[in-house]
């Protein structure tokens, strides 16, 4: 109990700190800086739309989660943010994605430069069969950022909360690490080129619960410096880590054709305590399918 010694003649005022002290409370929308502005995006594979008419904004220094059932287009969607779909034959995109107010798919934009600014971590850890050091140093070397490379590698490993475990054995092979360590190594590799955004496609689904906790704690740390977008089929993971959550669903047409749509996009607590859309509620409560 706080001090109760002195008897108050008057009750006096109250300092208005946020009572529950919820530090991760969202800034109001007008104070958020937009990183991606997606406008009426439709993605098709071989002429068949996989995802249609999606509009939303991704904001700086937040963790944004995309959730939804299989086939809802969430992975397709996140791949649009670093032009990974460019690499898939037959993939086509309509609509626009502005990245810091510039057309991400503009003719003058270099897809390689995009992937440097917008890093990606995949479901399965995919380190190169090289040393721990060389894995992290790979990106900087490709980009010619070789001045102070040792410091850069150490900084990335520290940011990825891996330094304490591997700092003394950087020359060892990356494949000798555990799955969870390999995934953090991949995050370090991504951080070494100092990206602006980190995209994560099911980053913990191949990991055990302890490693998953590491990755989730790491996301909370990293969002101070980076903007994080995560796709997860693990709803509770989105609930735990995300500031804002977008729920995607599947629409089935009369001819049986299935297309992903964005159903609801809001602050994560709202999505998990009082969603607006019945489809969201059915999904988060497990009544769906």
């Amino acid at each position, binding site marked *: 109990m706080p001090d109760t010694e002195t008897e108050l003649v008057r*009750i006096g005022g109250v300092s208005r700190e946020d009572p529950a002290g919820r530090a991760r409370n969202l800034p109001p929308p007008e104070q958020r800086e937009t990183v991606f502005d997606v406008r009426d995006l439709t993605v098709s594979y071989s002429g068949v739309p996989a995802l249609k008419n999606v509009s939303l904004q991704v904001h700086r220094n937040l963790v944004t989660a995309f959730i939804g059932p299989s086939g809802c287009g969430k992975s397709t969607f996140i791949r649009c943010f670093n032009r990974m779909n460019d690499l898939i034959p037959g993939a086509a995109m309509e609509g626009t994605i502005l990245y810091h107010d510039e057309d991400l798919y503009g003719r003058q934009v270099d897809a390689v430069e995009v992937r440097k600014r917008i890093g990606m971590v995949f479901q399965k850890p995919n380190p190169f069969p090289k040393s721990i050091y060389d894995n992290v140093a790979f990106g900087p070397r490709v980009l010619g950022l070789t001045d102070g490379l040792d410091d850069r590698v150490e900084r990335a490993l520290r940011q990825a909360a891996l330094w304490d475990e591997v700092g003394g054995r950087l020359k060892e092979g990356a494949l000798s690490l555990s799955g969870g360590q390999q995934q953090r190594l991949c995050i370090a590799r991504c951080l070494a080129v100092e990206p602006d955004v980190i995209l994560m496609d099911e980053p913990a689904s191949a990991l055990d619960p302890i490693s998953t*906790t590491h990755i989730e*704690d790491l996301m*909370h740390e990293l969002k101070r410096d980076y903007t994080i977008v995560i796709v997860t089929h693990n709803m*509770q993971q989105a609930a*735990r880590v995300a500031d804002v959550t977008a729920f995607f669903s599947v629409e089935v047409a009369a001819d049986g054709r299935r297309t992903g749509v964005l159903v609801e996009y809001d602050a994560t607590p709202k999505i998990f305590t009082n969603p607006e859309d019945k489809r969201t509620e059915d999904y988060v409560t497990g009544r769906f399918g």
Partner: protein
Amino acid sequence: MRVTFQQELAELERALQGEAHLVVRSLRGALGALQRQDVELAEEVIAFDDEVDRQYFAIQSGIQELLARQTPVAIDLRLVLAMLHVNLHLERAADYCVTIAKLVKLAQALEGDASLVEGLEEMGNRAEEMLVVALESFADRDLERAELLVDLDELIDTANRRLVHDVLALGGNPELREWGLRMILVSRCLERIGDHAVDIGEQTAFLITGEFREFTDASHPDGSSATR
């Protein structure tokens, strides 16, 4: 280690202790108003309840969010559930302070009895002490100290019964009788605040042992239900 989750739990518990501090201030204000027949202070106590309510709702919604996002289990789950109860007990205790303040206003123009007011002040101090013991033993996870609340409550209950006799002994003066009736209600409010402190102690026991039990209840007034 789920760092964020543990931080959120700790923040909620801090907010709960903050709410308790507000309630103690409210009780002090109500007692001061009673002692000095200070209607202005009574008005302040009534208005101050908005602050307690604000804190109450903030904690309630913080707990809702935590449950929805973090799926707490084991001791974390017990802490969340205990906080949900303690939050309500504190809000109720603050409501009794408001009732006391309203009774002070109703009784302000009436002739009173100084020694009886002294008795109420003593009860009020005991109620405050009980709130402090309840919240400190919750914070310290101190079961032994929480169980002391039963003995402290006995003192307040005795004082409450004695006060009824004292009011009856005030005699036939109608104004004094009306005043006395108001004071019986003040006494009842203080006694109820003590009960809420005991209930908070029971939440401490639940938090520590994982078993819910009433320290005492009406059907086992000797406290025999307290054996596990």
